[in-house]
């Protein structure tokens, strides 16, 4: 009985909600690490618009574009999974809203695709 009760409060790592929890956290960490670099890059304008254009030319490299695609996708998924957390915590309980996880992944893929079409 006690063993069963203990099992029931363990996180179920096979649950889609656990995957969403991990993706939300990892995307948040990546975005937090990226932010200072993003801000410092925009601050290059203080040295003249040419400095920012120099960086933007560097940003045309495929590897940088791939990183930007990843950041756009991660920002989208962090937004949707974050909205799911707020909904679960603050709105009346209507289940774990697992379909939001699929929607979040789909929207992140869509935003990433629109980004790639835009820069192609």
């Amino acid at each position: 009985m006690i063993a069963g009760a203990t099992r029931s409060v363990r996180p179920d790592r096979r649950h889609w909600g656990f995957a969403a929890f991990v993706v939300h956290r990892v995307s948040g960490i990546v975005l937090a690490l990226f932010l200072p670099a993003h801000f410092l890059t925009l601050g290059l304008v203080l040295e003249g618009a040419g400095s920012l254009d120099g960086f933007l030319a560097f940003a045309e490299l495929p590897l940088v574009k791939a990183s930007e695609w990843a950041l756009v996708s991660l920002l989208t998924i962090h937004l949707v999974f974050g909205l799911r957390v707020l909904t679960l915590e603050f709105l009346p309980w209507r289940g774990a809203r697992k379909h939001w996880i699929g929607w979040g992944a789909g929207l992140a893929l869509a935003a990433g695709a629109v980004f790639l079409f835009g820069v192609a």
Partner: protein
Amino acid sequence: METRLFALQRLSAMLLAPLVLVHLALILYAVRGGLTAEEILGRTQGSVGWALFYGLFVLAAAVHAPIGVRNVLREWSAWRGTSLDGAMLLLAALLMATGLRAVWAVVT
């Protein structure tokens, strides 16, 4: 303190959600055909609206991100206590300073 941090994290998230949505839409619109400094500054320079929008964005992110990173580090690493809290305060200050400097750079 944990209750206050939880509240700040959620309040900043509620504020950030619509700001991120607009920022994402702007990114997807602006990157079409490539970015130039002239194009970016043409949109932002002298704009009180964008200054307020991104000023608020920076402040909310500077509150939201360090609390989130602190939660993750406390749960996924052995780092906790005053050294972690101090490091997260420094992260908040770094984000606020570099972020507001970036807003100043593109709107003035």
